[in-house]
């Protein structure tokens, strides 16, 4: 009945590395990571990778001008379709917009805006929210009451409404969007971190430090903060997707990143009318980019959540 299994030998190194990486591949969400990596790469190296300027029209040839406008000389040719459609060409692979600008280049620079806004905004919110959450949870008493009541009031406002409200105070602009994201999202960290800290405060290593007379700030710094980092990481990864959507929505509604910057949401808003003309790609390309980015961020976030903090449910 008992069959003899393979003899125990030291497997050779190559096989081990291969096995190990195969195992990692199974565990890691490969596709989302790949998408994120590509988008980040594109965002960082947009000036090198982009075939054209994101703000200036692509210089047309004389033939194009004649064909399109019956003019020998024109500043740009608008609404060139993507290369697989009739009249498309590989110089502008995804075509041009109504101002003759290369869509591919605009999408590449758009990745920059989305990522910078979402990352910086979420990070800043994370720092503020974590500190407030730690203070509320660890110090307790009035600190807790005041911080948590403000947090509750803050959370009452749906995030998009709050963001629009703030944007009407601050006006449009990339860094204003970052500020808005920070102001909107800190409360989510504060609420969750506080809960985690309440649990930590009762743990023996904290009690021990307290008995030994370690200063509060030092306890927070040495014992509390490192232990809430898992929670913070998970919330962070899940908030990034939301932040990207909020930025796109604000720009779509015309209160976010101002033109002519190529924010994806803005690109969609500007080309809404082109849908009626059958030029669906103008609005769909940026939409697909947003969806890909958010989807990847969310999948990564889910994976992190399972890995780092199974208790944390849909927040």
């Amino acid at each position, binding site marked *: 009945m008992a069959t003899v299994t393979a003899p125990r030998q030291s497997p050779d190194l190559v096989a081990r590395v291969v096995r190990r990486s195969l195992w990692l591949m199974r565990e890691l969400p490969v596709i989302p990571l790949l998408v994120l990596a590509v988008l980040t790469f594109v965002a960082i190296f947009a000036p090198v990778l982009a075939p054209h300027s994101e*703000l*200036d*029209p692509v210089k047309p040839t004389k033939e194009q001008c004649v064909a399109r*406008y019956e003019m020998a000389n*024109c*500043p*740009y040719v*608008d609404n060139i379709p993507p290369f697989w459609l009739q009249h498309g060409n590989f110089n502008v692979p995804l075509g041009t917009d*109504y*101002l003759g600008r290369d869509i591919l280049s605009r999408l590449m620079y758009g990745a920059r805006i989305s990522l910078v806004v979402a990352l910086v905004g979420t990070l800043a919110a994370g720092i503020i929210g974590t500190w407030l959450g730690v203070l509320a949870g660890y110090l307790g008493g009035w600190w807790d009451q005041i911080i948590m009541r403000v947090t509750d009031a803050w959370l009452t406002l749906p995030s998009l409404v709050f963001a629009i409200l703030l944007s009407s105070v601050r*006006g*449009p602009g990339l860094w204003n969007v970052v500020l808005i994201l920070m102001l909107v999202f800190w409360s989510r960290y504060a609420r969750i971190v506080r809960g985690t800290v309440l649990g930590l405060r009762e743990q023996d290593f904290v009690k021990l430090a307290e008995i030994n007379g370690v200063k509060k700030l030092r306890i927070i710094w040495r014992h509390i903060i490192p232990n809430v980092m898992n929670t913070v990481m998970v919330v962070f990864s899940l908030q990034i997707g939301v932040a990207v959507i909020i930025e796109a929505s604000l720009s779509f509604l*015309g209160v976010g990143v*101002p*033109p*002519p*910057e190529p924010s994806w949401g803005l690109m969609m808003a*500007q080309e*809404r*009318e*082109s*849908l*009626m*003309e059958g030029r669906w790609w103008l609005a769909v390309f940026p939409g697909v980019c947003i969806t890909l980015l958010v989807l990847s961020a969310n999948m990564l976030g889910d994976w992190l959540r399972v890995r780092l903090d199974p208790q944390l449910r849909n927040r």
Partner: protein
Amino acid sequence: MRRGMFAVVAVLALWLVLIWGEAATPAADPILSGPLVKLDIKDAEVAAVRGKPKGTLTVGMHVALDPGWLDPLEHIPAITQQHYDYLVHDALIKPMPQGELTYSLAEHAEVAADFTKAAFRLRPGLKFHDGHPLTTADVKWTYENYKGVHAKTFHDKLERIEIVDDRTIIFHFKGPFIDFLDLYNGITTGIGWILPKHYYEQVGRDGFKSRPIGAGPFKFVSQEPGVQMVFEAWEEYWRRPPATKTIMVRGIRDLAARMAGLQTGELDLTYGMTGKLLSRVMADTKLRWNRNFTSPWWLVFPGYNEPDSPFHDKRVRQAVSLAINRQFLARQETQGIGIPWGNWISTEIRDALRGDGKDLPVPEYDPEKAKQLLAQAGFSNGLDFEWYVPFPPYFDMGERILTDLRAVGIRSKMQTLEGPVFRAQVAQGRRGYPGNRTVVQNIDPRPGGAKANIGVYAVCGSPSSFVCEPRVEELWAKHQASLDLAERERLVKEIQRILIEEYYFVPIYVNPFVHAVGPKILPEGDGVQHYWDTLHAPYPWPWEVWEVKG
């Protein structure tokens, strides 16, 4: 054959009698004693035949609807409100296709030669929608209770109002009030539109806004604030019964949605169809469209006269003008129907200089020269300014201009504001824009002569001042002091020339405010264009003449 001839003669005779009768009435008894200003007020056309109203006209407005528009007492200076004034209310005199001043509720008007008195006589038998008679008491009450734009001017200048009888009223002013008829003329301000005293006092401000009545051709039926308003023909309107039974106005800001509505027949009339979808409007054989030239676009540089502003240098302002490819811009934005123009005031306006080369040259497009000028002004690497603020919702056009500017090295980003916010900032003039690195793109089809536009934007004392120059001030002071109309005209034209030649205003092209109508609108073919005959009107009033298929 003989019978036909006879009929023609009979009709001719009848027509002559009518003409005679029409011509006879204005020679009524004078109200004021003493010398009078010679007024050019046209007579109203009263329909002889009274037909039955039929059909529904659905209008797609490109802005959200404001119930406040139904109350002229709190009139805002936006021309959009006149859309509703003309529906529900009526004025003593108002612009009509016949002329800028046309008799409506009044059948006779006089202004004393020293501009200190004005008198009106109402038509006999006027009524409000509820059947209550409209008398001079309502006219007086409306004047005294007016709170809207220019209210202070009216109240400060008024000495007293004298009611001679139910149909005759005299306004006595403290001093000469030269602009009185321009302002009382049912446009620019709301004070000319007569409201029912008894009803307004009964229901109050909010009540009136939610259910207004007036003396206009259409009765208010219902509204969803911001979404839609429904009006119904009032067959007892003095001039004629409206030809359309129901007018429904819907607020749809999105151009694509208005386009879709037109094509599906959900909308019969839309405005502001310029931009990305114009070619589609033009291509659709079911639709009829036309341009309706309102006024030229212009750029202005708030704070240009401060030394640290990059636009302080005339060469930079000139470079901006040279950088704009007006021909191509008009082609992209308006399919080539916008006319590149050299003045910032519309040619339809009294005393305006023409900008097509007759009085002022069409501005040229020369990016190389623009770059040279910039380099001479010390901006050889180009310059960045803070905001480009286009007139809403012409954001595409704004970005096109911004792209032209980028091509010569003038770079910026665009601030997209909604209508009220944009207008409010313009209203504050230079103070509406912090810093002095902003370019504003505006348009203002303002009736009341070229002096009205200059008085608002180009003199130091105006709250909305963008230009403040000693040379202009001097000429303006002379203009204000003068009672000689010919000299006033000469001065106004001189000011316009300075403003353009110094590039304080950079005109672009005359805006064709394109409207489109669906197949339901009568008459068939291009006859529909006569609805737009009223001078200075971007919208097709009077509404009582609109005909649709039943």
